[in-house]
């Protein structure tokens, strides 16, 4: 009788262990997936920027400084080594682009260009996707990190060396409207 109880307890513990381990793996996978979502959008934006520079060149002569800055920041995003550096560069690029689009209002010819209108929608879409995938990354990270700290999953996580995932900071500047200077 005692033996049976011991066996039953062991079986229950093994089943619980396996299911906790699997759910930890699953949530860790979700954080990685949501990071790759961000990465895909960053790449997409980097692919769009040369087209934007080409399109704008002929119309907005006074914006060559802004365009150079955008091109430089694009390089920074592409070359950043760590996710944190990448996001810092990406946030600066977001700021530079939104500043540029605000100033583009002053060029009626540019705004009438179909290619520019299309690029503007594409870039707006990509910027929104970066923001939303970052939000998704933070919520999956919160879910995963909570599991790492909660009992009893913290025991399983500790023994199998699950590392916590880092949150991405939302830049304060992004929440403000871009300032328009001429």
């Amino acid at each position, binding site marked *: 009788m005692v033996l049976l109880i011991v066996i039953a307890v062991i079986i229950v513990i093994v089943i619980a262990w396996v299911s906790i381990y699997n759910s930890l793996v699953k949530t860790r996978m979700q954080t990685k997936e949501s990071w790759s*979502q961000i990465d895909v959008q960053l790449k997409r934006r980097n692919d769009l920027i040369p087209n934007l520079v080409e399109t704008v060149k002929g119309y907005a002569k006074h914006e060559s400084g802004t365009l150079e800055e955008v091109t430089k920041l694009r390089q920074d995003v592409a070359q950043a080594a760590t996710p944190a550096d990448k996001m810092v560069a990406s946030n600066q690029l977001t700021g530079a682009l939104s500043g540029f689009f605000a100033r583009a209002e002053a060029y009626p010819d540019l705004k009438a260009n179909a290619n520019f209108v*299309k690029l503007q*929608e594409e870039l*707006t*879409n990509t910027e*929104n*996707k970066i923001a*939303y*995938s970052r*939000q*998704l990354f933070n919520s999956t990270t919160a879910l995963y990190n909570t599991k790492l700290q909660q009992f009893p999953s913290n025991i399983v996580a500790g023994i199998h060396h699950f590392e916590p995932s880092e949150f991405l900071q939302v830049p304060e500047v992004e929440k403000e409207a871009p300032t328009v200077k001429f």
Partner: protein
Amino acid sequence: MLYQQIQSNKRRTVVLLLIFFVLVALVGAAVGYLLLGSLETGVIAAIVIGAIYTLIMVSNSTNVVMAMNNGHEIKNAEQAPELWHTVEDMAMVARVPMPRVFIINDDSPNAFATGNNPEHAAVAATTGLLKIMNRSELEGVIGHEMSHVRNYDIRISTIALALSAAITLLTNIGGNWWFWGSGDRRRDDDRNGGGGLQVLLLVFSILMMVLAPLAAAAIQMAISRNREYLADAGSAELTRNPQGLISALRKLGSAQPMKDVDPSSAALYISNPLKNKEHLFDTHPPLEERIARLEKM
């Protein structure tokens, strides 16, 4: 909160289907008894027909609802980039698959979601909505619809719509039969006085009177006003920007009614497309109250 809402929606769906099948069985029993002289045959036939109807409706609900509301499907981002991209964003952040996207040609701004589950969902927006809303307002509206998708609100409202349409059809048939039948009856009365047919017509007319308000009640039960508040809160959670939805709701509030809307679909829309002022059968909570709740977030 979200989990409870999903559970309660699934429970209500089962209750709704049960009520529907009990009604169908009752009608079947009455028809079978009076026409064929067999209660069981009537019940079985009615349940089989009812089950086939429900299966067809449920498996094809999106197409049926979209056809009822004159929705045209768009297949890629080029046809309506802003709408398509916004739906993509909201689906991503709500962690549901990309739904099908439809556009309704109507100058009155409105939107709704339908479908069976988050894997088979559809979102529709009117051309008026796309015209007057800016990006963050559109995100608020689509976020609201995506919350309905995620909460399984779409399943219960679509089934409620299908079943109430079936009951309305049934009672209409009953009503017509009674109307034409009463002419026959007068002639019959002169000769030999009705009999079985008269009783049948009486049963139908009574059923009709009982069923119509029941159908309305079923919709009321399924489409509780609370879920609109919950979808508004869900939208604010997805967009992190309640201001977008607040200003969208203000614009929806001052809009004209839709030209050509299917009345039984009215409850699906984000704001009442008929703009009628009868509050007894309101499917939507007042916009002012929804705005007030969002402002408190």
